[in-house]
């Protein structure tokens, strides 16, 4: 449960389990708490009540020292991009590898690859300040995927892209997902929800409703407040854990440091 304003919790009674290697859409009206949910996962914010489990560990109770290890395994596309305006495109993407201490040769080749994947080849030297909205968004995406994290959290990653490019980018996330990465994709764009029959979580009024088979059921779920649809489950006001279980591809040392074999629930 997360409360910002007295008596109006943003998220309450959210009880979700996201399996390793899943691809989940999160949607819901503006201000429903999508970004807040993602923030809780990468520990930019902490829950007021309840638990978030990642590999059996409660993220909310991670020590400050472990947060960097957590974040290195999570790639985030921020809704407001969070780029450094006076850094070049290259520097903005490379920073995600540099913090891992990789040699600059590897950094260069992997950044170039990531920029190519988002369609920004040859723009590496421009300062991000001068890029168009869509281009900045793609820089943010490149940064999130460049270190091949275990989970990618994408908060509205196609909001500034035209439909064709949005589908391309969705394809990119699908590709990443095929490599075993878990993707949590928050979006408003119904077109995207329509094209892929992925698991869908609708946040509304602080609750999570599940709609498993795309838009038709979503409309249904929204119209009937999730009660008439047998795929959608409305939850009580009881806070429960959001489970995101362990991954094999965590880098060994971090995984050990973070999720030791004796770490209980």
């Amino acid at each position, binding site marked *: 449960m997360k409360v910002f304003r007295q008596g109006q919790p943003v998220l309450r009674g959210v009880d979700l389990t996201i399996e390793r290697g899943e691809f989940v859409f999160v949607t819901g009206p503006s201000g429903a708490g999508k970004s807040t949910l993602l923030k809780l996962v990468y520990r930019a914010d902490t829950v007021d009540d309840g638990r978030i489990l990642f590999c059996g560990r409660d993220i909310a109770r991670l020590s400050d020292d472990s947060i960097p290890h957590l*974040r290195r395994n999570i790639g985030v596309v*921020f809704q407001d991009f969070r780029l*450094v305006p006076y850094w070049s495109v290259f520097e903005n993407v490379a920073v995600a590898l540099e*913090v891992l201490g990789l040699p600059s040769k590897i950094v260069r080749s992997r950044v170039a690859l990531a920029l190519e994947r988002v369609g920004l080849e040859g723009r590496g030297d421009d300062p991000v300040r001068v890029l168009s909205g869509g281009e900045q968004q793609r820089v943010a995406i490149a940064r999130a995927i460049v270190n091949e994290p275990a989970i990618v959290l994408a908060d509205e990653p196609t909001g500034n892209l035209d439909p064709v490019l949005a589908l391309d980018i969705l394809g990119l996330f699908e590709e990443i997902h095929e490599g075993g990465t878990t993707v949590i994709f928050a979006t408003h764009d119904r077109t995207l929800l329509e094209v892929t029959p992925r698991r869908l979580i609708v946040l509304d009024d602080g609750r999570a409703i599940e709609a498993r088979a795309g838009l038709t059921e979503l409309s249904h779920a929204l119209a009937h407040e999730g009660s008439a649809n047998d795929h959608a489950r409305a939850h009580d006001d009881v806070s429960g854990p959001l489970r995101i279980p362990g991954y094999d591809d965590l880098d060994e040392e971090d995984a050990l440091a973070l999720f030791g074999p004796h770490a209980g629930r």
Partner: protein
Amino acid sequence: MLSRALRGLRLQLGTQLLSTATVALALLCLAGALLALENAGAWTRRWGAPVRVTVFLTEGADQAATESLRGALAALPEVEEARFVSSAEAREALGRTGTGDRTIAEAPVELFPASIELRLVPSAVSADRVAAVAARVRRLPMVAEVETYRGFTERLSGMLSGGRAAMGVIAFGVMLCVLAVVSNTVRMSLQARMREIEVMRLVGASPSYVRGPFLLEGAMLGALGAAAAIVVLGALFFTLRAHFEASFGALLGMHPEFLSWGVLALLLSGGAGLGALGSGVALRRGLAQA
């Protein structure tokens, strides 16, 4: 880490130069205060210790006895030099120090008693030790009187050590101010770059990874400021000294010295330390937020 720090300096060159200038001014204050303090110290040592004793001889003391007395006095461990001053020499010396009064020069030689001037080893004496020596010498047969200039020396010494204490207080105050200003300046120049810190934290940089280059940057900035301050102070000092050597030299009775190498090194490392400290304080905030 160095390359990242240098990149930071290069990217925000304007802001960084501004802060360096500010740091330099603050450290200039400190260095100036230190310079004054050091010279005041030297001055105090030079004038504050009772290093001169005059042994007035009785009238008509014979040459040989006087010479043996002089030898005995010169052999005392506290005495660096013992010089015999005849009546004629004394008259001449008094005439020289007076304000152009020719009358003394014409006065009969007998008015001015012969004396033995003792110059003491400054490091070996204290006021008490000198008083003891004076008492002992005073009991010798040929000695009319022993002048230790005690009143004058004590007043001057008190005044000088008072001045030195005042300088010390000022230098300390300046140091506190400088500490505040340097760390504030580095903080301000960091504030514009909180976004960088935030981004690095969000992609999983450990606090120490973020901190390193910024601390180094702060230290370089502080050291640069200190170097600038030293150069400016040095230029000022040597120009002024060359210009006013004669007059001030005469007044102060000494040659003003620039800060010693040790103090200069201390200033440089102090500047670097302050810069790093300022960065550190700023970062604590920034890291807490991100």
